[in-house]
């Protein structure tokens, strides 16, 4: 009951009040796509520094990609009233953008955030192509994932302003000073009617000037620094507002929106100022996240009171505010320098810069306040996860002194913004509480992605059936015409069975099996891996990769082979035919085709490069069909061009050879049986696969031929006692599968030595057995348990794998090696 109450009442209540939202329960309706790009210089961020860097690199002839997360280039230039070369900065911005667009090899990606840095100069970026429209145009993606490989990158990601920590700093109307300037200067929107500015740095007091010029009353400038700042005083004069240094906002009035603030000046006197907007600023933190994605640690810069980039990934440089260069002139200069240097590192020769100049403001050093010690109300550190100064205090009282630990105790910095505004403030509070220097407290590790990225964007078009390519067999069209039910076998679609009208699946399979046993059937086995092995040492090579011997195989014969892994367990099986003295044709299971090919290449190139042997995958070159049943010879004979003999004498069991069929088409014929019936496998070049299956059906019609699927194939191989995928599970040995006699004692081969370990050969190991049902009407299902007759159906009576099974034997034998009789019950039929 308590559980239900929790699930039905408390948890929904808590989730709702925490604003956790609901997970979507429908598939993402939008399209996403992925693309790749290459460049010499990737410039990350399109503000003053980034534009300068892109121009410097692009003018030198470098291939440049410039990414900016905004829909407009310019960064803070858009939100400030700066001048460059004595002209409004926006004029320079316009010219710079036009010049970049005129460069032949400069690509500008707007609405694009570079969110991750990876090995080898690889960068991931997300382009929000259509997030700004309600419904993306038809066939247009919502977002596009970029994988950009760049020789050099210049991070000009700017900086993020920090809030100040004082009581009720989350009241509507309290906002960052930079945001207030964006409203006023960029969007021409008034954030309020009368404002107060509270900050500890000169840049923020420009807000007062901008507000006053826009006609918004400024009621007070509160400077946390003890010594008055000339720049801030000038701003106060222009806004005709009182200026207080060494003061702080200690109380915010107004429940639903700010109405006034109470300030405490340096003499401890309180004063109240009406306002409906409070612009605050605790300084700026360089956006250095990308510099740390490969393990670099940021460094604490005491002069700037900020973390700045430390060791950089290869090929990366940082410019502008991201490097702690906060003035506009420093942004322009460092961007220009980094862009030119990046181009130089790519082999270009940038000309001597004629860079634009901005007026350098004489600034009073920022002296971070971090937090107002005595103020009323909750002082939020992490606005997204509702973590307050008192939460951090509690954490330190509980003994958490490291940011990583405080983070996990309080969830500080764990919201989707990943602490972009709160991490450093949190570290400052911890430093104050634990009596340490903030640089010694450290910070948490920034990891990709820099910004939240939809899983769908990472997936792109690889969804549902498009998750990977679907491979179709040569007889696919034929099988579809015959209403085949298909099954996925790896990447392949294979016919599972061919139902006739009104037939239940089990009846279909029974009919297909019965027809093969009594007449003849045909099954597409083209999905088996086929590997051509040629060379004078081909026989020696196969002796070393198979547990049994192939060098003694006569030309024109095929042999079943078992391949082991080097640890002695069975890896794969199949038949390999010798077509000529130095030419073998190997088949593998469908599932392991790629793995075996890679394994053979490893053996050939790494283990025994001295052998004269070459291997190549021919899986897709040959269409291959098994024709099985008492009438199989008649069907094959009808296909062969005249004068070719496949009588039992001329073409006995396990024979292999080249023939021509259907009027000169080359074909390979193998007399193999997976079903126990008289059977052939016939292969033709894949382009004739569709024609051949139709020719087989036509030739077999007088004998009542049916196509059969993998289900009937499985039934017949079980009846025959052939091991297959469920038994060759990676946990069984050749001995377990009843194939111990095949394993050669005369030669070295992959898996020979380890396969002879006592635990892998001991008699008590599980072994594959066949089951013959007494009661033929009761179906034995895959995974069924076997218990002795009349015994209780308990785990201890289970004859196959169940929890107590390995323990009993292991404790007796003291064996370290365990095995699993996988498929024992699956084999039963």
């Amino acid at each position, binding site marked *: 009951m308590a559980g239900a109450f929790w699930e039905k009442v408390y948890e929904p209540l808590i989730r709702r009040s925490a604003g956790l939202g609901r997970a979507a329960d429908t598939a993402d309706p939008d399209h996403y796509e992925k693309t790749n790009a290459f460049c010499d210089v990737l410039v990350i961020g399109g503000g003053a520094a980034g534009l300068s860097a892109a121009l410097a690199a692009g003018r030198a002839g470098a291939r440049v990609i410039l990414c900016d997360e905004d829909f407009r280039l310019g960064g803070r230039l858009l939100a400030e009233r700066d001048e460059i070369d004595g002209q409004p900065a926006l004029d320079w911005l316009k010219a710079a953008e036009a010049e970049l667009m005129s460069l032949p090899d400069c690509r500008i990606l707007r609405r694009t955030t570079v969110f991750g840095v990876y*090995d080898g100069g690889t960068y991931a970026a997300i382009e929000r192509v259509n997030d700004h429209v309600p419904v993306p145009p038809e066939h247009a993606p919502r977002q596009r994932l970029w994988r950009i490989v760049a020789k050099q990158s210049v991070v000009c990601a700017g900086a993020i302003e920090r809030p100040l920590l004082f009581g009720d700093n989350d009241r509507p109307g309290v906002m960052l000073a930079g945001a207030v300037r964006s409203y006023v200067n960029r969007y021409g929107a008034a954030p309020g009617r009368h404002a107060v500015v509270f900050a500890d740095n000169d840049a923020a007091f420009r807000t007062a000037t901008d507000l006053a010029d826009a006609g918004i009353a400024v009621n007070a400038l509160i400077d946390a620094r003890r010594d008055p700042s000339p720049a801030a005083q000038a701003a106060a004069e222009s806004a005709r507002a009182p200026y207080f240094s060494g003061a702080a906002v200690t109380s915010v009035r107004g429940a639903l929106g700010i109405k006034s603030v109470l300030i405490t000046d340096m003499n401890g006197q309180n004063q109240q100022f009406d306002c409906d907007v409070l612009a605050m600023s605790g300084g700026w933190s360089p956006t250095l996240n990308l510099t740390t994605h490969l393990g670099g640690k940021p460094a604490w810069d005491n002069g700037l009171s900020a973390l700045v980039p430390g060791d950089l990934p290869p090929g990366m440089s940082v410019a502008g505010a991201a490097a702690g260069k906060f003035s506009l002139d420093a942004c322009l200069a460092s961007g220009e320098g980094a862009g030119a240097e990046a181009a130089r590192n790519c082999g270009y020769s940038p000309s001597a810069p004629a860079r634009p100049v901005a007026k350098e403001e004489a600034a009073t050093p920022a002296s971070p306040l971090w937090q107002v010690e005595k103020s009323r109300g909750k002082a939020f550190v992490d606005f997204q996860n509702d973590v307050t100064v008192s939460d951090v205090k509690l954490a330190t009282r509980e003994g958490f002194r490291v940011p990583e630990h405080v983070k996990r105790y309080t969830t500080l910095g764990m919201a989707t913004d990943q602490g972009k505004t709160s991490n450093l403030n949190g570290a400052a509070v911890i430093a104050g509480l634990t009596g340490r220097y903030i640089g010694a407290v450290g910070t948490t590790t920034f990891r990709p992605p820099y910004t939240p990225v939809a899983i769908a964007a990472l997936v792109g078009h690889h969804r549902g059936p498009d998750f990977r390519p679907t491979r179709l067999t040569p007889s696919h069209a034929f099988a579809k015409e015959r209403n085949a039910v298909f099954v996925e076998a790896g990447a392949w679609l294979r016919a599972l069975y061919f139902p006739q009208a009104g037939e239940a699946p089990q009846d279909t399979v029974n009919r297909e099996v019965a027809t093969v046993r009594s007449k003849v059937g045909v099954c597409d086995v083209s999905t088996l891996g086929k590997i051509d092995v040629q060379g004078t040492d081909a026989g020696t090579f196969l002796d070393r990769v198979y547990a049994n011997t192939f060098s003694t195989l006569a030309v024109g014969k095929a042999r079943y082979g078992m391949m082991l892994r*080097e640890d002695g367990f069975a890896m794969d099986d199949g038949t390999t035919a010798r077509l000529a003295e130095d030419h073998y044709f190997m088949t593998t299971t469908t599932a392991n085709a790629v793995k075996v090919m890679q394994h053979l290449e*490893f053996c050939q190139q*790494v283990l025994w*490069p001295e052998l004269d042997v070459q291997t190549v995958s021919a899986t897709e070159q040959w269409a291959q069909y098994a024709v099985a049943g008492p009438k199989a010879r008649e069907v094959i004979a009808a296909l062969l061009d005249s004068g070719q003999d496949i009588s039992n004498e001329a073409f006995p069991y396990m024979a292999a050879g080249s023939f021509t069929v259907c009027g000169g088409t080359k074909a390979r014929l193998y007399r193999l049986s997976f079903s126990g019936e008289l059977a052939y496998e016939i292969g033709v070049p894949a382009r004739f696969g569709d024609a051949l299956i139709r020719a087989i059906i036509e030739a077999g019609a007088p004998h009542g031929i049916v196509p059969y699927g993998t289900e009937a194939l499985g039934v017949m191989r079980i009846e025959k006692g052939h091991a297959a995928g469920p038994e060759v599970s990676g946990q069984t040995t050749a001995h377990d599968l009843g194939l111990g006699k095949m394993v050669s004692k005369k030669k*070295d081969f992959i898996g020979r*030595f380890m396969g002879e370990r006592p635990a892998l050969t001991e008699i008590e190991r599980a072994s594959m057995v066949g089951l013959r049902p007494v009661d033929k009407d009761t179906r034995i299902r895959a995974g069924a348990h076997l218990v002795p007759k009349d015994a209780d159906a308990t785990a201890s009576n289970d004859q196959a794998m169940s929890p107590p099974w390995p323990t009993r034997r292991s404790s007796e034998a003291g064996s370290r090696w365990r095995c699993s009789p996988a498929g024992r019950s699956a084999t039963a039929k």
Partner: protein
Amino acid sequence: MEEFTYRGDATVTRPESLDASATDAWVDYVYLRDNPAGPHKEHWHHSAGCHAWLVVTRDTRTHEILAVEFAREGS
């Protein structure tokens, strides 16, 4: 699908002896691997390309690729 497939340590050598005294060497070869911090030789397969096995020298601390040779010619 990625262009290369990683296999692992390229410094181990397959023992030639099938004698019982070679057990330790075989266990070493099949199961035991060093985990060095620094340059390390590894086998990579150019599986979506030319199918060559490569010996890649990679710094395990930085993932920097220091050298690439064909395995066929390497040893």
